[in-house]
């Protein structure tokens, strides 16, 4: 308990809230690294996932990347890239991008895939172009699951960015690794608390975003199908997507009170 009090005292000390090693700077560094990595990964993985989901081509990519990367130790990857490319932000971003791709890819793919085939068929039959089908039907209806993929990716990257501070680059992880070797545990615990808080806040924000991403008409639909106790097609797809995503435990049952589809929402094991 002493260490906890020490950490709290450290956290409330104004000295630690200013300067280039202050908490605001470290927090911004952490968010910046995370943001850049997720953005780059999203540009690659979401567009690829949408393409795969829309066309049905290359779907083996989703399965193989999610599976193969799970067993790959992130720390090993980080240090290996740091050795090859030199210590700095570049190699870290590369590794974080690689890590963020599978959940984003799986989310985008499963999102499009979850849309009822007959809805897409009808959209095509009434004369929508393939691009209009993607942007006006598949993306809006798949958005909760796509955002779910984003949520997993962000949490994964926030956690991994913490250990990337070992290299050392910036971010809240610096409090942990700068002081661990010095055996000064107050800042170490404070760093752990800050990282945890950051992860929890982001988790909350994305859970909210995911909820907001459910189109109103769909929420009503889910409400009524839950009332009937049936399992909808989208949910069955998620069941399948869940098992291929792996991290998403096999899909939600029909009687789940939570109206938000939960395909690849649960975060990756944190690093």
């Amino acid at each position, binding site marked *: *308990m002493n260490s906890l009090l020490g950490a709290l005292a450290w956290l409330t000390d104004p000295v630690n809230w200013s300067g280039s090693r202050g908490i605001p700077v470290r927090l911004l560094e952490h968010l910046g690294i995370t943001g850049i990595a997720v953005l780059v990964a999203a540009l690659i993985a979401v567009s690829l996932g949408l393409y795969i989901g829309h066309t049905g081509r290359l779907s083996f990519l989703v399965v193989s990347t999610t599976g193969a990367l799970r067993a790959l*130790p992130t720390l*090993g990857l980080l240090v290996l890239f740091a050795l090859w490319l030199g210590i700095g932000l570049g190699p870290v971003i590369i590794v974080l991008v690689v890590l963020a791709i599978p959940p984003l890819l799986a989310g985008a793919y499963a999102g499009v895939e979850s849309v009822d085939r007959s809805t897409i068929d009808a959209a095509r039959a009434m004369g929508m172009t393939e691009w209009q089908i993607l942007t006006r039907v598949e993306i809006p209806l798949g958005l909760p699951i796509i955002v779910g993929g984003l949520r997993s990716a962000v949490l994964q990257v926030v956690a991994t960015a913490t250990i990337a501070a070992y290299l050392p680059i910036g971010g809240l992880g610096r409090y942990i690794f700068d002081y661990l070797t010095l055996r000064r545990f107050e800042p170490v615990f404070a760093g*752990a608390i800050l*990282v945890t808080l950051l992860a*929890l806040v982001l988790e909350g924000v994305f859970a909210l975003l995911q909820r907001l991403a459910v189109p109103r008409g769909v929420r009503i639909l889910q409400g009524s199908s839950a009332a009937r106790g049936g399992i909808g097609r989208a949910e069955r797809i998620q069941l*399948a997507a869940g098992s291929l995503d792996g991290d998403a435990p096999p899909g939600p049952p029909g009687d789940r009170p939570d109206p938000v589809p939960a395909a690849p929402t649960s975060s990756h*094991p944190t*690093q």
Partner: protein
Amino acid sequence: MTWVLANLEQIWRLTLDHVALSVPPIILGFLIAVPLGWLAHRYRPSRGIVLTVSGLLYTIPGIALFLSLPVVLGTRILDPINVIVGMTIYAVALLARTAADAFDAVSNDVRQSSVAVGYGPIRRFFVVELPLAGPVLLSGLRVVSASTVSLVSIGSLIGVSSLGYFFLNGLNRRFPTEILTGIVGVIVIAVVFDLFLVLIGRVLLPWARDARPSARRGRRAVA
């Protein structure tokens, strides 16, 4: 390659350390998560609590969890027990949800008919519900196994011995071979564990082998 041959003994020792850190969380996680998942499935109010708490625990970054545990448990900060407990928490967090979904997915008709046949609640759990939830539980367990084996290596950052040692030592010595050895070692352990779990599944759940396309897809995903 010469380095690997020269250091076989150390590689083997760290591999054993790694296995010793990985196995308890996988087993404990399963034993704790199944009853929790069943509770969440059976009693609606408990469902929200179990799923929310496991979701939040799952959110905590690994290194932060390892470092926080001594405060909660009163253990020493560099104690391997922190890594084991931390990994167990992750395993429970992930598997409890899987287990709840797995029990939910057991067909209600089958459950009703087993009531009608006259099974009591305990017998019904072991004879009907658990085996039928088995394939989904197994696929969840395989995910837990792979990520546990991979994550244990970050324990090396707080001085807990595992194959992760090669990552840090390799970085200090600027020696990629050592890092690669560590990575390959981790992957080999993960694959061996996965094959073992698949084998257990074949023996305990013989009917599920070809009946469930989704389970088969999951199998390929990990292998």
